[in-house]
């Protein structure tokens, strides 16, 4: 795969004000050292810290956007 085509299909996408999208099979270790296996083709990892299903995103960042956007 050329660099150009890879840039259209990155492994990780950092969504402004939102989660980190992760393509493929990975193990994500949370803040407490627990491992979580991805289960879907693309996973969304929480970046705002407020998700109720961490390490995965549950859309809670949308309620924080106006007050304290998560840092990229």
């Amino acid at each position, binding site marked *: 795969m050329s660099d150009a085509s890879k840039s259209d299909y990155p492994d990780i996408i950092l*969504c402004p004000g939102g*989660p980190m999208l992760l393509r493929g099979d990975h193990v994500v270790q949370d803040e407490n050292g627990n491992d979580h296996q991805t289960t879907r083709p*693309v*996973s969304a990892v929480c970046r705002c810290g407020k998700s109720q299903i961490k390490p995965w995103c549950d*859309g*809670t960042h*949308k309620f924080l*956007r106006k007050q304290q956007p998560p840092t990229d």
Partner: protein
Amino acid sequence: MLLPKARGALSGCVFQALQSGDTAPISDTPEPDGTEDAQLTLWVLYELHHRGFEDVSDDLEWDPHLIGLRRQLETDFEQTLRGRAPQLPEPGAFAETFFDFVASHDGPSLSGHIHKFATKDQVHEFLRHKTIYHLKESDHTTWVIPRLSDPVKAAVVELQYDEYGAGDPNRLHATLFARGLEASGLDATYGAYIDEAPLEVLEQNNAMSLFGLNRRLRAASLGFLAAFEATSSVPSRRIAQGLDRLGFPPEMLEYYTEHVEADAVHEQLAVRTICGVLLEEEPELHEDVFFGAWTSMDLEDRYADRMLQEWAA
């Protein structure tokens, strides 16, 4: 599934023709007895392209008389939908504009009612209504795929693959819903509850088919998808909590908790890798993306308004 019960002169005439196989009378059909009669007829005509009916010949799927009538009904419906749409956002930074558009939409909250107040009977009714879509969940978006450029097509398939359980039939979202229905003592047979689907449910399902089956409306279909996904995670969590409060079985909860997680992914994909890329390629489709998005939210509002009023009575 058998044909539903007619709801007026038009559906009565059309269903009779469908059962007999003689569609010539369709060229001179009566005027619909109101919107519900027209929408049920349209729903049946679209259903010929989904799974069909046991009492209607498969040969009628592309019958010219039926297609002609479908065209009339869907033209009227599209005009109605466009007439309902407000001033839509101007082109700008797409993802931010889109998420702001969805966030600023203020509609009645059916999920909030289910979360805290709904009775078990009300939730059963809600689930029966939702069978009309969830037992064929995502199929309308699949219709759009061959009408897209390669990059947008690949992006839609990436999302749809997850909707369809990434190849595992046990994880298909429609299967998860069916399993939840059965565990809740409801009928998971495709189309079992069509006779009690209210107008607002018919309109929701017909809008999805209208956008999915007409190539010129591909941007509306993908905008509908993006708004649907972007308004799903948080309501799904509330519904799961309501189901838990009412003692529904874990299979029914699982459908909704799966959507909390899945749709937090899908909303980003639908906005960024699907609609965003579509509009980079074809900026003139901007208005239709937002028209589809608005229609998605408005039709859900109409359903919520109706049910909250009925349940408050």
